[in-house]
């Protein structure tokens, strides 16, 4: 097999590998170096990580499992120091790697302003996860101040993120208005005003003289003598392509590594891709053209013909609430006319630049709804003379009566570009939806890549889905949790973690609940999310639990309760049965029944009697079976090798171990498990939330079955050899579900929503992650494994629940 060495595991080379493996995973044996100690992630989404809107895990593009699947030899955290072209080897810090073909994809490095004090601690740039983490850490100090040097795309995203994290932020920008390379003065002004509204101070025409401090940064001094105190200085003034190793190896390098339309450098066996390249004298700083490069390079590596060409670029800022768009050339000039629309009260500004009846540039601020339409006009170069008068109002105003947004999307030509980042056009999206029967945004992202990078095109993609799927698609894909909020479960869970919200009032305050204290839908959900996300820290709010979970018994239609003690793995004993019989007699319990989960249900217990019933059951060694809870219910087992002539493993023992390990944990919805000792499956493990089928070779872990309103067989998660591995796998799976599931969403629905791939990636393919989830479960069990019955029967918890507050006798009442 040919050896392919890649220097740099960034966004561009990542896309090359994806395209390459898609065509032929066997074509090359790949070695991948990366100076960063990690693989490829969606660098452009560092801003949402900084602001706390996403976690790093969510922006990883290729995980350990992906690399392993394609047998990529990963050398992460190892910088390449030189290339020996004569011997065709790459020299890394830890050794050499021979190549037949080499790709240089080293990206670029941030430009450091050459001022005094630039080496002080606390002065950083904004390029990778480490930078992001430094910023997050700095923002943890109350009242900390940040100065961002550079009011371009990166600087403003950094500023907005730091501000959201509570820092006092000042942006220094050298020129007269923000984002001067993408915006004109008027739009720059509106942007400045919006940022100031968010509490970000903006100083334009501000030239940094020096950075003050002895070891750590203490402030920034401007050319006019102004001194700004600062605990953190972020430099975001531009980037410089990383071309040193190429230059040292004698390749043609100008401002960056010179490549031809096949991405070849001056050495025919060496290619370059990404921000480190220069093509026709042009440099790159946005991903869209790099993805085009990647597509071409993958083909060239497979021996197919293709060539790279530069398309028009557009820019959007990923700061929530600041909608801006710019594309093309918007400088005023001779022979150019402009059309401007201003709506100051709504903060809307649009400017179009027309030359020879063609649209050549567009700047929009505040309302970017027609951005794609204008962008298409710029790229087509078709004449706009006929609609000159109404052009600025956008697509809806063309051709008579105004169109609604859906009709506007419908009117877009098939080749209209919808997702700028990934270069996905309309017909590709609609075609894939139909061909693959896609119904959710996540599926469309997975199959077409549209909306999977910066996400600003999500609205359009949803409109296309609505158009293609008709009434069956709900364009408001996020269903609010309940009437008290517009946020869906996913957003609420994410924000609880990101903003470290640790109580129900805090959630309601920070996420702007519309009611003063929620309702019976959202309160139990929030209570669960907080328990799951802050184990040991959050105090369970009894008043936000359904009655069953509050009194640890099941309410029946007549207001009495049913009581189900645990029987570990369905095993019981004479003394337990005797104690149950005694309780039934003593409290006159009308019905006793065997449940489907191999235990005994006592029905018709009066609420007042509950504590005494529990005390007696506790005395016989039994604890609550949680038959009432969104929690681990039963682990059903068959008799296994102990008795059964077909049994292959100790299924009863494993079931008991699982139940003893996991009881007491709260989950998004109930979790029922089973362990069958052989594939004859007497414990019916293949319709449970989690099931195990023992075989001679070990344990088959199943999950996501259902046998209620829906009936569904399980899916196989994986196969393991030992009992320990089985327990670790199951626990990690349940913990992942605990952290991702929406309240009342059973495991099979969770699987349907997040997809098998993501679950496998987290608990099967990546041992470190599996361990991480396992450990988190163990941590949460430290405080969860208390018998609620004992707490109430003898521990004095919630004693008010079980007796009336007062009794008014007949005589008093008649007075």
């Amino acid at each position, binding site marked *: 097999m040919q050896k392919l060495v890649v220097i740099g595991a960034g966004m561009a080379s990542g896309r090359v590998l994806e395209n390459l493996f898609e065509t032929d995973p066997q074509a090359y044996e790949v070695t991948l170096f990366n100076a960063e100690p990690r693989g490829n992630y969606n660098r452009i989404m560092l801003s949402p990580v900084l602001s706390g809107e996403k976690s790093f895990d969510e922006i990883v593009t290729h995980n350990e499992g992906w690399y392993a699947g394609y047998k990529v030899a990963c050398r992460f955290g190892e910088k390449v120091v030189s290339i020996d072209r004569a011997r065709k080897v790459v020299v890394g810090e830890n050794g050499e790697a021979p190549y037949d073909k080499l790709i240089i994809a080293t990206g670029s490095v941030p430009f450091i302003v050459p001022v005094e004090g630039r080496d002080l601690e606390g002065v950083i740039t904004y390029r990778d996860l480490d930078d992001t983490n430094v910023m997050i850490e700095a923002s943890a100090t109350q009242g900390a101040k940040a100065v961002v040097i550079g009011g371009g795309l990166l600087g403003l995203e950094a500023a907005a993120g730091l501000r959201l994290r509570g820092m006092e932020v000042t942006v220094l920008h050298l020129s007269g208005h923000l984002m001067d390379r993408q915006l004109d003065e008027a739009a720059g002004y509106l942007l400045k005003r919006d940022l100031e509204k968010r509490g970000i101070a903006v100083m334009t025409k501000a030239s940094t003289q020096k950075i003050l401090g002895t070891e750590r940064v203490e402030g920034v001094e401007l050319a006019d003598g102004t001194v700004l105190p600062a605990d953190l200085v972020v430099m975001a003034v531009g980037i410089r392509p990383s071309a040193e190793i190429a230059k040292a190896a004698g390749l043609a390098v100008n401002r960056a590594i010179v490549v031809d339309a096949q991405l070849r450098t001056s050495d025919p066996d060496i290619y370059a891709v990404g921000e480190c390249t220069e093509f026709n004298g042009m440099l790159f700083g946005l991903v869209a053209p790099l993805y085009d490069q990647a597509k071409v390079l993958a083909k060239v590596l497979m021996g197919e013909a293709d060539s790279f060409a530069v398309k028009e670029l557009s820019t959007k800022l990923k700061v929530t609430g600041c909608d801006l768009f710019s594309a093309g050339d918007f400088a005023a000039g001779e022979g150019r006319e402009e059309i401007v629309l201003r709506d100051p009260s709504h903060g809307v500004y649009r400017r179009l630049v027309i030359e020879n009846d063609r649209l050549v540039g567009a700047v929009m601020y505040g309302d970017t709804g027609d951005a794609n339409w204008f962008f298409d006009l710029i790229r087509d170069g078709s004449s706009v003379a006929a609609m000159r008068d109404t052009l600025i109002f956008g697509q809806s105003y063309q051709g008579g009566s105004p169109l609604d947004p859906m009709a506007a999307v419908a009117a877009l030509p098939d080749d209209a570009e919808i997702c700028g980042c990934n270069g996905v056009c309309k017909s590709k999206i609609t075609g894939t939806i139909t061909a693959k029967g896609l119904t959710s945004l996540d599926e469309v992202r997975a199959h077409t890549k549209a909306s999977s990078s910066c996400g600003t095109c999500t609205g359009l993609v949803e409109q296309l889905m609505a158009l293609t799927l008709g009434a069956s698609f709900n364009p408001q894909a996020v269903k609010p949790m309940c009437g008290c909020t517009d946020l869906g479960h996913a957003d609420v869970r994410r924000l609880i973690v990101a903003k470290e919200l640790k109580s129900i009032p805090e959630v309601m305050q920070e996420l702007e609940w519309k009611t003063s204290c929620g309702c019976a839908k959202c309160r139990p959900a929030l209570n669960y999310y907080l328990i799951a996300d802050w184990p040991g820290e959050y105090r369970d709010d009894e008043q936000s639990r359904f009655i069953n979970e509050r009194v640890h018994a099941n309410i029946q239609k007549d*207001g009495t309760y049913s009581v189900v003690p645990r029987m570990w793995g369905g095993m019981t004993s004479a003394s337990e049965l005797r104690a149950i019989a005694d309780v039934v007699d003593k409290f006159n319990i009308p019905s006793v029944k065997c449940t489907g989960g191999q235990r005994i249900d006592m029905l018709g217990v009066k609420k007042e009697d509950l504590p005494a019933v529990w005390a007696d059951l506790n005395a016989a060694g039994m604890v609550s079976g949680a038959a009432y809870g969104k929690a681990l219910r039963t682990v059903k087992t068959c008799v296994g090798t102990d008795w059964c002539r077909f049994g292959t493993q100790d299924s009863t023992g494993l079931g008991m171990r699982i139940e003893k390990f996991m009881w007491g944990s709260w989950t998004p919805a109930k979790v029922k498990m089973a362990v069958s000792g052989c594939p004859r499956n007497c414990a019916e493990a293949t319709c449970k939330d989690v099931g195990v089928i023992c075989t001679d070779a070990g344990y088959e872990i199943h999950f996501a079955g259902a046998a209620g309103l829906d009936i569904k067989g399980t899916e196989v998660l994986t196969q393991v050899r030992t009992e320990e591995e089985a327990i670790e796998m199951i626990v990690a799976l349940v913990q992942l579900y605990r952290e991702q599931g929406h309240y009342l969403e059973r495991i099979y629905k969770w699987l349907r929503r997040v997809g098998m791939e993501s679950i496998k990636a987290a608990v099967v393919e990546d041992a470190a992650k599996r361990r991480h989830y396992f450990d988190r479960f163990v941590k949460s069990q430290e405080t969860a494994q208390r018998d609620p019955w004992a707490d109430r029967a003898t521990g004095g918890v919630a004693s008010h629940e079980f007796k*009336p*507050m007062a009794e008014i006798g007949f005589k008093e009442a008649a007075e």
Partner: protein
Amino acid sequence: MSKAWHPIGQLTDIPKRGSRCVATPFGRIAVFRTAEDHVFATEDRCPHKGGPLSQGIVHDASVTCPLHNAVISLETGEMQGPDEGRVRTYAIRLDPLTGAIDLSLAEAAADMTQAAE
């Protein structure tokens, strides 16, 4: 009949956003305490299928029945949303200084006397 007030306990006997019940000759009465420390009293029977409202979740000045999630206004006793029906409410008062709560059974007693006549 004059409004006779029966002392039933202290505000702190009821959990915030929670409820307790009071046994009376006219059946169980649910007493509620809201997040803002207002108190309400209603019959402990949901107008839908008789669920014990004292076991529901209290939010704002409403309670959601534990059996089938009917939402009932504690101020008026009426079912919210499309459903119709109401529970009887009782006069209840809270002494803001001492936290003592009194309940009046006049509404229930009035019914009884009418029935007897």
